[in-house]
C-alpha cells in the first residue's frame, strides 16, 4: 500500500514537471504572435493593435529569453506558485481552482449517473445474454457511442429544454443546470461501460466457480452478490479509470455548449490567447487528476482483489 502511494507521488512530481515543460515548449513553438494574442484576449478584437501588443510585451517582459521565463516558472512551481494569468492578471491557482471545481462537479455527477445506468443495464444484459434486452442495449450503445457528445447534448437540449421546458439550456446557477450536461456525458460514458460490465458479468456468471457456488446450494442472488460482484468489479473499475480520459475529452465540447465554466473550456481559451501560465496550470491540474485517479483505482483494486496484494 505504501509502495503504491510512493510510486504515485513520484509520478505526480514527474507529471507536474513534464506537463508544464511540454506546454511551455509547445507554446514557445507557436508563439510568434504571443503579445498580440494576449492583447486580443485582454482588450477584445476591436482594440487589439500593435500599441496594445507592445504594452503587453513590456508589462510581462515577453522579450526575455525563453530560458529565463522557463526557469522562473520552474522556481515558482517549486514554491507551489503557479503565477498569474497573463490575460486576467488573477492568480492562476485561483482561476484553475474555479474552473476545476466546476469540472470535477460535472464529471462526478456524470460518472455517478453513468454508473447508475451502466451497471444495471450491463448486469441485466449479462443475465439475459443474447435476449432482446441485451440486443437493444447493444444497439442503443452503438448509436450513442457513434455520436459526438455535443450532438447528444443538443438533442437533450431540444427535447428537455426547448420542447418540454423542464430544464434550463445553459448556465450554472443551481443544481438544475447540471442535469443536462451531466446526462449528456453520462450517456456517452455509459454507452461503452455498460458493454464492459456486461462482458465482465457474463464471464463471471459462466465461470466454473459461479456454477460451483450454485451447485453447493446458494441461490442465484446470493451467488451473484457474494461471488459475482467482486469478481466482475476489477476490470470494470479499471475500465472506468481509463474512461475518464474520454470524459475529459467530451467535457470540452459539453462545457462550451452549456456555458459551463470548466477546465476544458478554460484551457481551450487560454490556448487561444496564449496565456502560458494558465495553460501550464490547467494542464498540470489535469495531469495531477489523472495521477490521483490512478491512485484511487489502484487502491480500489487493491482492496477488492486480494491477489494483487502479494505483489504490491
Amino acid at each position: 500500500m505504501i509502495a503504491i502511494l510512493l510510486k504515485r507521488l513520484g509520478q505526480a512530481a514527474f507529471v507536474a514537471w513534464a506537463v508544464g515543460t511540454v506546454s511551455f515548449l509547445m507554446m514557445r513553438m507557436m508563439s510568434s504572435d504571443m503579445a498580440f494574442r494576449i492583447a486580443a484576449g485582454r482588450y477584445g478584437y476591436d482594440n487589439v493593435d500593435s500599441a496594445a501588443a507592445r504594452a503587453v510585451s513590456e508589462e510581462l517582459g515577453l522579450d526575455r529569453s525563453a530560458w529565463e521565463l522557463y526557469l522562473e516558472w520552474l522556481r515558482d512551481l517549486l514554491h507551489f506558485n503557479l503565477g498569474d494569468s497573463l490575460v486576467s492578471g488573477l492568480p492562476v491557482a485561483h482561476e484553475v481552482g474555479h474552473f476545476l471545481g466546476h469540472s470535477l462537479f460535472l464529471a462526478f455527477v456524470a460518472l455517478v449517473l453513468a454508473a447508475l445506468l451502466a451497471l444495471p443495464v450491463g448486469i441485466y444484459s449479462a443475465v439475459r445474454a443474447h435476449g432482446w434486452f441485451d440486443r437493444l442495449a447493444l444497439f442503443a450503445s452503438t448509436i450513442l457511442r457513434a455520436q459526438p457528445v455535443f450532438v447528444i447534448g443538443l438533442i437533450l437540449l431540444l427535447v428537455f429544454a426547448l420542447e418540454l421546458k423542464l430544464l434550463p439550456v445553459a448556465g450554472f446557477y443551481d443544481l438544475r443546470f447540471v442535469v443536462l450536461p451531466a446526462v449528456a456525458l453520462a450517456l456517452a460514458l455509459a454507452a461503452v461501460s455498460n458493454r464492459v460490465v456486461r462482458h465482465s458479468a457474463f464471464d463471471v456468471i459462466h465461470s466454473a466457480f459461479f456454477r460451483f457456488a450454485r451447485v453447493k446450494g446458494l441461490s442465484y442472488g446470493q451467488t451473484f452478490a457474494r461471488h459475482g460482484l467482486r469478481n466482475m468489479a476489477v476490470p470494470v473499475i479499471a475500465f472506468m479509470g481509463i474512461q475518464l480520459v474520454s470524459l475529459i475529452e467530451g467535457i470540452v465540447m459539453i462545457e462550451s455548449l452549456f456555458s459551463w465554466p470548466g477546465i476544458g473550456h478554460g484551457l481551450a481559451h487560454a490556448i487561444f490567447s496564449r496565456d502560458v501560465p494558465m495553460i501550464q496550470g490547467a494542464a498540470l491540474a489535469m495531469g495531477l487528476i489523472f495521477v490521483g485517479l490512478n491512485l484511487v483505482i489502484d487502491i480500489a483494486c487493491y482492496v477488492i482483489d486480494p491477489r494483487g496484494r502479494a505483489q504490491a
Partner: protein
Amino acid sequence: MSGRFATDRPFWRCLLGMIGLCLLAGCSPNQDPDQLTLGGPFEFTSQDPSRDGYVYTRMQVAETLLDVDDQGNFLPGLATDWHASDDGLTWTLTLRDGVRFHDGTPMDAAAVVNALRMARLKPGVIAKAPIEGIEEAGPSTVTVTLARPYALLPAVLAHFSAAILSPASFHGEGQVDWMYGTGPYQIRSFEPPHSLVVERFDDYWGEPAHIESAAYLTGHRAESRALQVMAGQTDIIYTLDPASLDLLTRHEDVAVHSDTIPRTIQIKLNASHPFMAERDARRAMSLALDRASLVRQVMRVPDSQANQLAPPAMADWHRDDLPELAHDPEQARQLLTGLGWTPGDDGILQRDGERFELEMITYADRPELMVIATVVQAQWRDVGIDLSVQVVNASAIPRKHLDGSLETAVVARNYGNIADPLGVFLADYGDGGSGEWGAMGWHNDDVPALLKAMQATTDPAVYRRDAQRVSAILAAEMPVIPLAYYTQQTAVSDRVLDFSFDPYERNYRLSEMRFQEQ
C-alpha cells in the same frame, strides 16, 4: 429462480430516480420573475475598465463623464458641462452634483482625477490622447490640459476605458479588485469568464432601475444562445447568428430586433501586393461581388449592402451622392484582362506565369464573418481569382499587417468604437494612408493631411466638409472594399417591455426596461 430478478430492482429504482429528478426540476420555472437574464458571446476576465469595461457600461455598473446618443452626439453623463479654452489646449469639465459611488463615497473632482489617471496607465484610447495633465480645479471641476488641440477628447472621455470608478476600486498600478461605479446597477456576483449578476443601486443619482437585478451569461455557441431564449430561460440574447434568425422570427414568445450599428464589414487588402496594386484590379475585385445577394441570403438583412465605409448613420462621413456598388462579373473580367490577366486551363487567371491566387484571413468572434469569407471566395473564383480562406485569431490582422504578410482579410470594423469616427479613420488611414485595421500598402497624402487637420478643428462645418472629402477619396481609390453594414440582431422575450438598443453598444439600457405585468 426468483432471486434472479433481484438485479432488476436497482435498475428500476435508478430509472424512477432519473424520472423523479427530471420532474423535480420541472417544478421550478426556468425564469426568475424578478431577474432579467441576458446572454451574449463575449467573455470577461476582469473588472478593469481598460480590459472589459464595455461589459460594465453595458450592464450599467460603470458610467463615463460624457454620454452618447443614438446619432453619436454627446450628452451630459457624470459631467454636466465640458468646454475647451480658445486655444483648444485646456478642457474644463463640471461634474454632476449628488453622485455617489456604490461604496457610498461621493463622486468628486479628486475621485475623477484619480480614475482618469489610472485609466491612462493602461493601453487604450485615453493613453493615445495627447494629454499633459488632469487636475482638480475645484470640488466639482476638473481640467484636462493637452499638448495640442484634440477634438477627439469628448469621445475619449465617453469611452468605456475612461469609466469613473471610486478610489477604493483600485490598488497598485491601476488594478481593479472590485468595481465601485456610479451606475443604476452594482455588481452582486462576478464569476469570470461566464457570469455577472448585478442588482439595483438604490442611491443612484438618476431615474432608478425598474428591474431589481440582471444576470449576464456568456454563451459561446450561437446555437445554444438561440436555444436559451427559445426555451424561455433567457430574456435577451445579443448577437444572434444568421442561421438562427429564421427559427427565432417564427417563435411566438420572442421578438427579434434588428438595429444598424456603426460597424462595417469590409475587405482589408494589401494594395502593395503586385496583384492588387492597380486600382482597376481592386475595382474588378469589387465588381465581382454580389453584395445584394450576400446580405439577403447569407446575412438575412436585405438592403444592408455597403457602398462606402461609413454607414448612413454617420451623417458627417457618409456620402449620399455615391451610387450602389455594381455587381458586374463581365466588367470585372474585362478590367482584369486589361491588366494583362488571361484565364489558365483551370479557369484561374494567369499573368507572367503567376496564378492569381490570394489568401484571405478572418476571425471567429463575429459569427457571420467566416460565412462571408467563403461567399467572397466563391464569387472571386467566378472571375478567375483563387482565394484560400483561413480563420485566425483577430490579433493576426494587425500582426500580419505589420509584418507585411497579410494579403486580404474580412473584418467587421467598429466605427463607433469611440463615439467620434475620426479616431478610427485616423488609426486606419492616418499613417501615410494606411493603418493596422484599415488600408495596407496604400499611399496617399491627402487623407492623412485632412484627418490631421480635423483633429484640431472645432468648427462642425469644416469637420463635415473634410470628412466628406476623405470618404470620397476612399470610395474612389478603394484601398479597402466595403461589403455590408452590420446589423445587430437581438432576440427579446415577450415579457420584457421598453427594450431598446444602443447603436454604440455602450449601454444595454437595462434600467429603462420593465417586465410585463403577469
